[in-house]
């Protein structure tokens, strides 16, 4: 599995909160250019961190419930969950090396 999985409101609990390994959730929307900018970077990171961190996407346009639950007010927002708990929250497009660092820190 490399291409980040698209997760909807109904699946969020099972796929994100109950995951055995940490999950990075990319809250995005198709009309958000900065989101499109980091999408290929997240594809690569999903591959590189495969088995250690799952990377999934939530389209806020279709899944407002999850967006509201986590008070998403800007996209892209990248939230990392471990054992069902939110441990990291970053907002805005970032460079690959910065995202890698964020994931590395979250895995510590």
């Amino acid at each position, binding site marked *: 599995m490399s291409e980040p999985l698209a997760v909807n409101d109904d699946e969020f609990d099972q796929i994100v909160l109950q995951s055995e390994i940490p999950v990075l959730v990319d809250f995005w929307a198709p*009309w*958000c*250019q*900065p989101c499109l900018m980091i999408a290929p970077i997240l594809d690569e990171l999903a591959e590189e961190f495969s088995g250690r961190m799952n990377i999934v996407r939530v389209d806020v346009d279709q899944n407002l419930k999850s967006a509201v639950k986590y008070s998403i007010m*800007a*996209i892209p927002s990248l939230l990392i969950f471990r054992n069902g708990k939110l441990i990291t929250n970053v907002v805005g497009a970032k460079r690959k090396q910065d995202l890698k660092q964020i994931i590395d820190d979250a895995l510590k």
Partner: protein
Amino acid sequence: MVDNNYEVIIIGGGPAGLTAGLYTSRAGLNSLLVEGGLVGGQIVSAELVENYPGFPDGISGFELGQLMYQQAIKYGLNTIIAEATGIELREKQKEVKTTEGNFMAKAAIIAGGSERRKLSIPGEEKFIGRGVSYCATCDATFFRELSVAVVGGGDAAITEALHLAKFASKVTVIHRRDQLRAGRILQEKALSEPKIQFLWNAIVDEIEGEDLVKRIKLREVKTGEKSTLEVAGVFISIGLKPNTDYLKGILPLDTAGHIITNDKMETEIPGIFAAGDVRSNSARQAITAAGDGATAAIYTEKFLS
């Protein structure tokens, strides 16, 4: 990785830098492009670019940036993700200092463009993503039926206000002057949009809230009278700032910080060129930036031969 054999180093991977890189690479010059953020530059945040010739139906800024990048690397442009932090002159060479090491080249083209100006007031940094936004197209949807403020009075600010009016319950445009800088058509649209109201001669002093933005503190420019406005969102659109902080004292800049060039894109220092939005009197369009990049590359080639 320190390769000192570059003929030209290009700082910035927006339309200007990518076009310069396309031309220098095609001319057979060993070229390195240093990009500190994401390749494509500012244009990647444009939803639809309708005035870049060759695309009669428009093209997304993201796609345009990607295509420019692909075209440039196809001809051998080297790229590195690093931020340039200075340039030093070493006899005939230019040493470009970056966060990933220093590189030497015979010529440099500066194409760092500009970035959104911040208000630099208390609360701004703290609430980014918690109510403070610099991108209405991205974030308007999270402010459905909420009251928001737009700070600024130019084309960009009014475009953002009109977009926000489709979602928010109320949009207050806060402008430090008593009239807008935005073009007439945009102004008329905004003035006739019932959800948009204007606060003239007002300055935002502080953004407040707990977890999320709750209100902003305002000051009347002339009377100094203070007030507060309850808002859930603050969209900041107060213009652009050229990315030239690291060049102060090295190159002559105009009062706003843009690099001064002649019509060959030459700066005062032989072998250092500037192109695009970063340049004084630039028209600040993707096409003019690309044009500047081509001009700079062609005169760089002449300089080197």
